[in-house]
């Protein structure tokens, strides 16, 4: 069983939901990322989503765009990100790591080389934002060969047969984008999310993570009532940005927000 499947099974057995924080690797500087990953696990993260910086993050809002820009000042490359995961694995063998990013750095490395290097470094899954299932055939072969899960997005505008196609292609979990727009947007409509999740659940048994618009303990708790996992990105990255010139203060700030979310989510049960 993959690390991701194992974590969801164990959480389900305890009636809990997964908390999945996102940070961009190399933000605000490469040396800090591994310590942030450990701090987030200690604060209650079940899975880490690690952003691979890209020069043209088309699906991201300004907060995560600026995180990519800060990381790219230090030329944080896909190979550097894999090295960070390898370093994280020295002290943590159980927390799944999902790489989230755009296709071009993977194309440049080559699908097979990427799959092999990612598996070897201890990565569990890849969420490649700009590759829909229709274009993903070759990448999926490479990921499958190395037993990496492929996470795909489902949007509010995704309907009917397309939900089925995505769920059949995805493994690990599916990621429901809870509102129209880019990362960092607001106005979360919990009832609408619940309705869509019910529709998705009719076609798949995969756990469903919900992201976009989760900014504090209250929204995390509300979403965790209807989803299997809560993904929080821009709210954390904003804190990284605010403390970019005081890097020692970043880990405690992320841990504080995550601990609040963890507590609020667990209080549901």
């Amino acid at each position: 069983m993959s690390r991701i499947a194992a974590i969801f099974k164990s959480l389900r057995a305890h009636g809990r939901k997964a908390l999945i924080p996102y940070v961009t690797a190399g933000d605000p500087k490469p040396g800090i990322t591994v310590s942030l990953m450990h701090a987030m696990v200690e604060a209650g993260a079940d899975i880490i989503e690690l952003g691979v910086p890209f020069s043209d993050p088309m699906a991201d809002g300004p907060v995560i765009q600026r995180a990519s820009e800060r990381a790219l000042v230090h030329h944080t490359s896909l190979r550097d990100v894999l090295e960070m995961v390898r370093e994280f694995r020295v002290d943590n063998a159980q927390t799944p790591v999902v790489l989230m990013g755009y296709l071009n750095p993977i194309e440049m490395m080559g699908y097979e080389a990427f799959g092999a290097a990612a598996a070897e470094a201890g990565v569990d899954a890849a969420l490649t934002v700009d590759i829909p299932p229709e274009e993903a055939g070759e990448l999926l072969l490479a990921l499958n060969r190395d037993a990496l899960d492929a996470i795909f997005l489902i949007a509010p505008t995704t309907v009917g047969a397309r939900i089925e196609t995505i769920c059949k292609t995805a493994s690990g979990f599916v990621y429901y984008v809870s509102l129209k727009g880019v990362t960092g947007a607001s106005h979360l409509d919990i009832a609408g999310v619940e309705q869509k999740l019910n529709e998705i659940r009719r076609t798949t048994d995969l756990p469903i993570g919900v992201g976009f618009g989760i900014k504090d303990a209250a929204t995390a708790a509300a979403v965790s009532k209807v989803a299997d996992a809560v993904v929080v990105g821009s709210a954390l990255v904003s804190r990284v940005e605010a403390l970019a010139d005081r890097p020692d203060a970043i880990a405690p700030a992320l841990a504080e927000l995550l601990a609040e979310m963890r507590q609020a989510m667990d209080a549901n049960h």
Partner: protein
Amino acid sequence: MPTSNRETYFNQPDEQGHFGPYGGVFVAETLMQALEELRLNYEKYLHDKSFLAELDADLAHYVGRPSPVYHAGRWSRELGGAQIYLKREDLNHTGAHKVNNTIGQALLAKRMGKTRIIAETGAGQHGVATATVAARLGLECVVYMGAVDIVRQEANVYRMRLLGAEVRAVESGSKTLKDALNEAMRDWVTNIDNTFYIIGTVAGPHPYPAMVRDFQAIIGREARQQMQQQTGRLPDALVACVGGGSNAIGLFYPFLDDKAVAIYGVEAAGDGLETGNHAAPLCAGRPGVLHGNRTYLMEDDDGQIIETHSISAGLDYPGVGPEHAWLKDCGRAQYVAVTDSEALAAFHALTRVEGIIPALESSHALAYAAKLAPTLERDQIILVNLSGRGDKDIHTVAALEGIEI
């Protein structure tokens, strides 16, 4: 000239938008439904008689088509070789080929019931052409433009505002065209219900490369007929500048199966290909994925997109339309590059010898034609796409010569 043995070049792209290994749909799931809706409408109206009649009427009476083909006889004699003919897209309303596409997409937007238009722009020509049609159709219009380009192209920014468009400065990344495209995509994802995104070139996810080509192919259809009427035959060579590549594909496409016609796309070599300061992904880049399609890109070894340089803002783009990538690989078209200074020399030559001030973009095509002409016989014919007029560039040219106007 390398040619392939392919029977026809008119069967691209496939259903998913692939030109050989290029093109396709590489976007986040949040855009898939909007692209599907666009594809279905584009396929429907492409064959709809009343839509095509409305488009043709607008192209005739609003844009001023057909644009003439002009024999640059004096310049040809001076160059001492083949006869150079110019397809005068500079004479269109708004001064460039861009309006052929914005008219088409805006009419499509209207048929689809969209009330808001967005666009990206680099030099501002596509932004002006979009603001123009939005004004005429009474549609709300937002144009994204890199903060750096806004400073470089002040006059076009004012033009767009006069036309009622809101110009939004993009402060992310390199603050140029590619970042404006990213930002327009983000707007589209957020406002999908009422918004139509008019992309200005033959790049982006399917159906844009095919749709923009089909709207621009009027250039080549007219030129093919005009050359037969004026010279009794087809030209020996076609030359057009390539940034994203919409004017080039517009000219080339109707000639693709005329295999005796050589095709040259001219990229911006900037300071010279060997310096790295250029915008020539076909000549000096590698395949990758950006802005929704697979194509040749300017990128570093980590797969990050790198900044480009060209004297011409309209060619200053790190990607290129996927159909050009495919035509390059199968050998049907050849892609070459000319430097800033070669383009400037051609700008001055055409202005002084023929009394036509060409856009700096088009000056790249002219510069290559000036190299090609002396290698051909006097009875051979080169057709150059004069894609835009140069009035917008006089400040750039004057500044380079130390003149303040």
